[in-house]
């Protein structure tokens, strides 16, 4: 399934914007799998990328109700894939943390970020108070 010719592929940049709503996260997940399969990732690594990117989207949705769209940016290079996930709101200010609707939700949020850190090789996380949360993740291709 993994085309060997994909190894020699030119760098590419893919951008996706979805509404910050639970029902659209699956679109990001499937796009993530499609982008990853253009590179030399194994099936397991593709699954890791799907989950990490979906968790980043879910995190945006839970972070603040002011976030309206999620922007995912993939940069495919010869050594791996760099993915950034940005929440984007139109409100004047994005609260940095949403008051959780219960213990379970906070727990899931913590688990999500923990999963991202486990599945990706490099993770940076910050919250822009005017735009929203931003996660930048890198996964290297095995050489």
């Amino acid at each position: 399934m993994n085309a060997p010719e994909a190894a020699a592929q030119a760098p590419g940049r893919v951008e996706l914007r979805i509404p910050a709503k639970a029902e659209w996260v699956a679109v990001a997940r499937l796009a993530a799998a499609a982008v990853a399969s253009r590179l030399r990732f194994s099936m397991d690594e593709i699954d890791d990328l799907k989950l990490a990117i979906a968790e980043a989207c879910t995190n945006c949705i839970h972070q603040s109700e002011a976030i309206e769209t999620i922007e995912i940016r993939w940069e495919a290079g010869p050594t791996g894939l760099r993915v950034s996930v940005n929440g984007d709101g139109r409100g004047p200010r994005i609260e940095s943390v949403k008051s959780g609707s219960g213990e379970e939700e906070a727990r899931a949020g913590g688990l999500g970020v923990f999963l991202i850190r486990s599945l990706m090789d490099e993770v940076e996380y910050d919250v822009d108070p005017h735009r929203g949360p931003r996660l930048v993740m890198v996964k290297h291709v095995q050489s």
Partner: protein
Amino acid sequence: MDIKVNVRESEGDAYVVDLAGEIDVYTSPKVKDAITELIDQGHYNLVINLEKVRYIDSTGLGVLIGGLKRVREHGGSVNLVCTNPQIKKIFDITGLVKIFGIFDDEQSAMKALV
């Protein structure tokens, strides 16, 4: 990109929840509702069969953890049936293998309940 939930009574007081599809932030409320309903009805020994689940995210894990906590308050337990290696890996990474009983088939999960 959907979840199918089927609940059925089994031996003893145990109930089996069969899940098929993908458990994510969109579909997990449906799973949560099914588990909550069982617990509200007083059923505290559950086997959740994940054999036909192709994907689970932290929201799905949260639902399972929440269910486990509630049944434990009543001396019950939740055992999982899981064969998908990618999903097993998620339970490994998160350390949830240590708090759930995870089995390769329903019979073993059932036996371990009682």
